[in-house]
């Protein structure tokens, strides 16, 4: 079973690489856009802070920005992958594979996750060097990053599930993804006690970004993080979004089969 699952992950990874080969400038343009995007935002913050934009604040923004960037990529790629497949008719062939479609989606998600981690790491290395930042790399930081992104995949699966039934839902993905950048405290911390802060607590990225900033900017150890109630809130939101995504995608498949709308877009 594990061997077969790895075979599917391998097939998805291989297909993703071929897709990148077919659109080589998409990758380059994407990387350049987000690299320059952060430099512009950083410059803007410098002006707003009247030169008091510290290295720690800059690093915190970078951690938030890159965590969001990975989430943004995973969300868009997951949803767009499905809508493209529906449009091309390959979605039905995926359904005809004799595997549980959700298993294939998990395999795809693993590949998409790895792909965006690599992209984000490349941007991170370049920006850290360019801006002269000094991040910490405590043990467990990858795990916290991973949990943060699982919640995002939960959201992606929910959109996919709704999209299978209500065909225009996928159009909302980019708006939602962009909103996450500004309402999760990714760029600048939100003021506690505000409505926006309370809302952000229930969004998939907020708790994770805050913990990652603690670890990477201030070097807080994983042992300390585990003692932080925020960590358990991250697990709770991740679990909630993950389960909700799984359930909604299953529901969407059933309804789409009833409506005969798997191939419609």
């Amino acid at each position, binding site marked *: 079973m594990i061997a077969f699952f790895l075979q599917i992950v391998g*097939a998805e990874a291989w297909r993703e690489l071929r897709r990148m080969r077919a659109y080589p400038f998409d990758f380059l343009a994407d990387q350049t856009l987000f690299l320059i995007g952060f430099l512009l935002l950083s410059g803007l913050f410098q002006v707003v802070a009247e030169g008091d934009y510290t290295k720690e604040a800059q690093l915190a923004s970078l951690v938030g920005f890159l965590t969001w960037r990975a989430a943004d990529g995973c969300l868009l790629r997951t949803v767009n992958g499905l809508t493209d497949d529906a449009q091309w*008719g*390959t979605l039905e062939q995926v*359904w005809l*594979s004799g595997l549980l479609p959700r298993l294939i989606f998990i395999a795809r998600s693993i590949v998409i996750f790895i792909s965006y981690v690599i992209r984000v790491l490349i941007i991170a290395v370049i920006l850290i060097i360019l801006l002269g930042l000094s991040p910490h790399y405590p043990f467990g930081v990858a795990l916290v990053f991973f949990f943060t992104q699982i919640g995002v995949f939960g959201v992606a699966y929910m959109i996919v599930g709704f999209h299978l039934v209500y065909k225009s839902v996928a159009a909302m993905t980019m708006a939602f993804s962009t909103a996450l950048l500004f309402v999760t405290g990714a760029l600048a911390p939100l003021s506690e006690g505000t409505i926006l802060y309370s809302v952000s607590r229930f969004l998939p990225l907020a708790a994770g970004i805050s913990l990652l900033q603690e670890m990477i900017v201030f070097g807080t150890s994983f042992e300390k993080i585990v003692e932080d109630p925020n960590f358990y809130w991250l697990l709770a939101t991740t679990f909630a979004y993950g389960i909700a995504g799984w359930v909604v995608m299953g529901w969407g498949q059933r309804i789409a*089969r009833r409506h*005969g709308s798997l191939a419609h877009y």
Partner: protein
Amino acid sequence: MRTKSEDNAFVRLANVTKTYPGAKKTAVDNLSLALQPGEILALLGPNGAGKTTTVKMIAGLVLPSSGNIQVRGFDMVQDRTKGVRQLGAVLEGARNLYWRLSARENLLYFGSLRLVPRRDLNQRIDELLKLVDLSDHQHIEVRKYSRGMQQKLAIAAAMLHDPNVLLLDEPTLGLDVQAARKLEETIAILAREQGKGILLTTHTMLLAETLADRVFIIHEGQEVAFASTQELLKKFNGNREATEIRVDGRMAESTIDFLQQMFAGVSAAPNVETTMLTWPEPKQSRVVDLLKYLDEQDEIILEINRRQAKLEEVFISLTERGEKK
């Protein structure tokens, strides 16, 4: 759970009905059919008759409202994943393939998805590429293929896991005569030499007539006829011959309209010098009536020919009148 069938049918539909949520009409109404090993079964019907819905229900892509569908004994509602492994499908109006990948890359991807063991996959791909005559083009991106090549590759992809059942929805749609002929040969090989059960939908009567062992005619979701091609033709030719009457000159459209009102089922093909009238099911006395009418209209009859009806004429006759078997 696999259930024991009374016979060896690869596919069995029993009283299958499908009404899409919110739809006023029933897409498929109480259909029952069976597809036997090595058989080519043609599902014929006008647009919107329910052919694609039937194929997608067999493939487990659309849930039936009621009735039972089994593929090699697996219930396609309760045991879809197991049932799906027994079949391959090429669906109409879909690419079925990734256009940015080459033929071989597509087959590698879909082969992995269909859990063909890695050690066997390359050999299987070589066999299939040879079967569909694409070995020399296997490294070209599919978007650069002709429609016929894409269709053949889609069939190869559907055959990767060596399924017993192949569902082909309009396999020759949009193909030129040569490509269609080659595809027909491939379909025949799969059924006759490899024993696959093939269910195909088509608008091309000639394809059904030459390739299919049995024909299932569906109209407005209901079964109109289900018999072997020969039986169907024999049944209709028993009391219905087609009469062809060639009339001098191009008949006016108003005359043709009037003629068709008086003699239901007459089709007319006017050209510059003559008009060919074809009537699939007239009794001799009715033919005489028609001839008298033409004579009264001062039409000059050049030629009268009585021949056996073609499948196309049987199909038109059945679907236009919505006759039941």
